[in-house]
């Protein structure tokens, strides 16, 4: 068993996380965390739907931003997917999706300001990068045979539509509808930086300890996600897409001169802007790297590695909740609800809540990341295990878990976990905005100081870090020969 590369890799990751834990800060610093938690629970039990008079508007805006953002992202992503063989397109897509929606929002806020376009592009751009990649993978898996038998002179578009597109269609629809759910989460979270979505009101309500309103907002959000399948129907979709742009609200008018100012002044490093030359720029960059980027990278890596391993552990513990080999009908339904709640709560929101309850340390961040991502992987793993057929005389209980099911799902488990690695890191960076000293903390500081040159360098570093982890994860998957199926991709 110890000779297995899979086991060695797993143990390596666990050892690394334990080492990281020694450097991390896990203190609970609130005086009475349980009392706060109790108040939050009371808020969920007795939500105050009347306190939030803007509830309807928050809900409408959350939906509108998600539909327009995801719609635009899917459309552009589809076009890019057709050109995905080009290195430029691939690199460009990898780059735009390495930058989190919230960072995109912070960038657009600088020149579009509080205009709906800020929120729409913040979702559409990274989503286009993700759609392009996944759509391209789906196309690659289609059977090339039909296109070879097309008569000479068939138009390219028609050829595409009747061969690859028609085969891939169910998978495309499947993935796009999954992404819409992600889009709703992103849209809600954009409220934290000022878009008029659920997050906006949630943050204000939390800040004032209005747990009744918090409960109402959270419950609405869960209902929205849980009922997604009931109201998002293929036939209704065009109607939603047409209506959504009109429901974004008006915001403040865009002043176009701000856009050129942003690109020609704001993001030019201060020493260059002030004519201090390359020498001044070098000193500026070095200072930025030493005092902000390095500590930020260090904390981002620490937190990512710890969160990754705890995510994995949690997923392995939780997947039996929805696996037919371990649960009955009632237990399975309860398990399902548990996992749905876990994965539909955005990490950012969860970290924000836990931070209020436990005080600032890496603990809320790790728990938030592990709960959300663990929930997703456990869900997919549970589904995977349900495809297994065990022998009639297979053992039951713990023996079944250890000797029958786990060995069979461990490969897919690692593949999923490595896939989430980059996502966990992207989230880790963004959690810095909440006050944990990862890269996002320094990005936020630079923006608060209206120093966009610095913020952009730090965002670029974050993107490179994410791309690096993505490449590493792909190599590991290849080395361990972990097959990765896009259709079960979260």
């Amino acid at each position: 068993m110890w000779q297995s590369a899979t086991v060695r890799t797993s143990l390596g990751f666990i050892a690394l996380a334990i080492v990281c834990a020694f450097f991390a800060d896990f203190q609970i610093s609130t005086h009475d965390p349980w009392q706060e938690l109790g108040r939050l629970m009371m808020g969920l039990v007795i939500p105050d739907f009347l306190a939030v008079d803007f509830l309807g508007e928050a809900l409408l805006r959350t939906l509108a931003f998600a539909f327009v953002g995801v719609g635009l992202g899917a459309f552009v992503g589809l076009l890019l997917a057709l050109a995905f063989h080009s290195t430029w397109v691939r690199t460009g897509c990898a780059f735009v999706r390495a930058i989190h929606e919230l960072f995109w929002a912070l960038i657009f806020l600088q020149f579009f300001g509080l205009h709906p376009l800020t929120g729409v592009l913040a979702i559409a751009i990274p989503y286009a990068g993700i759609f392009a990649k996944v759509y391209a993978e789906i196309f690659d898996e289609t059977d090339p045979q039909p296109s070879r038998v097309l008569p000479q002179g068939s138009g390219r578009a028609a050829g595409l539509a009747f061969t690859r597109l028609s085969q891939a269609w169910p998978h495309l629809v499947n993935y796009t509808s999954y992404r819409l759910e992600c889009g709703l989460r992103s849209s809600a979270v954009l409220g934290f930086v000022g878009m008029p979505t659920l997050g906006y009101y949630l943050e204000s309500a939390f800040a004032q300890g209005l747990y009744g309103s918090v409960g109402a907002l959270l419950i609405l959000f869960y209902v929205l996600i849980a009922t997604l399948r009931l109201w998002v129907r293929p036939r209704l979709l065009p109607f939603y897409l047409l209506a959504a742009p009109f429901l974004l609200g008006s915001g403040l008018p865009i002043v176009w001169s701000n856009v050129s100012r942003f690109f020609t002044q704001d993001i030019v490093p201060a020493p260059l802007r002030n004519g201090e030359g390359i020498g001044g720029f070098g000193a500026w960059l070095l200072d930025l790297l030493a005092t902000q980027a390095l500590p930020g990278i260090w904390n981002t890596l620490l937190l990512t590695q710890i969160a990754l391993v705890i995510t994995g552990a949690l997923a392995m513990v939780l997947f039996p909740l929805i696996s037919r080999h371990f649960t009955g009908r009632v237990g399975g339904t309860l398990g399902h609800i548990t996992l749905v709640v876990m994965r539909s709560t955005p990490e950012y929101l969860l970290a924000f809540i836990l931070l209020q309850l436990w005080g600032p340390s890496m603990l809320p961040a790790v728990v938030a990341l592990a709960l959300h991502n663990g929930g997703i992987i456990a869900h997919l793993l549970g589904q995977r295990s349900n495809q297994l057929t065990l022998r009639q005389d297979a053992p039951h209980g713990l023996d079944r878990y250890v000797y029958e099911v786990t060995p069979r799902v461990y490969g897919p488990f690692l593949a999923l976990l490595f896939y989430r690695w980059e996502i966990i890191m992207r989230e880790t960076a963004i959690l810095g905005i909440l006050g944990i000293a990862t890269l996002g903390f320094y990005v936020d500081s630079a923006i608060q100081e209206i120093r966009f040159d610095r913020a952009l360098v730090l965002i670029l570093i974050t993107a490179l870090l994410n791309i690096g982890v993505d490449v590493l994860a792909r190599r590991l998957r290849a080395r361990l020969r972990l097959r990765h199926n896009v259709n079960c991709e979260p």
Partner: protein
Amino acid sequence: MIRGLMLALAVLLAPSLASAETFVFTAIPDEDETRLQQRFQKVADYLSEELEVDVHFVPVKSYAAAVTAFRNNQVQLAWFGGFSGVQAREHVPGSRALAQGVEDAEFVTYFIAHESTGLKAGEGFSDAMRGMTFTFGSKGSTSGRLMPEYYLREHFGEPPEDTFSRVGFSGNHSRTASLVASGAYQLGALNYTVWENEVAAGNIDTDQVTVVWETPQYPDYQWTIRGDVDERFGDGFADRVQQALLDMNDPELLASFPRSGFIPASNEDYAVIREVGQELGLLD
């Protein structure tokens, strides 16, 4: 779907003609954000009546967002803190401070401590504070970040991160008060008017938290207006706005700041804040 998207773009990019002649203002979200809209809607109504133009209030989520909106000419007037006002005027040539609250000419920051620290009311900075946890307010706040950091550095001779075991940014003053009251942080620094307001409103248990030190006085909050409003809204518009602000004497309006009245202010009044900002490396 494509048609829908095109339409979406068209709607998004269409300039909102209706708002062309609307005078828009904002305020830094320094305390209870849920009340911002209510607090400032009345002010918007008042200004609208005095100035005879449409006046709109737009709430924002952070100090930087207020500065950015002002810089981007999406708002023309703002109720800034001392430092955010300096940042805004640095970035918008020609803009000027119009008025400050009566209290703002001699503003102070309170350093507060949780009862469990054993620190006594009014005992000042001491080495006993070393190793404790400490929270500022917003990163861009004058009374919650700039001035307290300045005095901490002056007393301890090192950055606050070296003095305290943990340094946080609560986001706003009321949150600082509640975080220290709950013991999440042992120490905190905040705007004294917010503190006294919260105490008067009974939101804070003064058995749990006490004021251990107050800073010397410095100038803080002010109304700042863009230099190009006269071109857009007519000659003398900025002066009329200033007069309207100075004339504001309805206690209900003033309570939302909370200030007892407004007095004239100028950019020079804030030179000291600018220097401190530069000294702390927050301004280039």
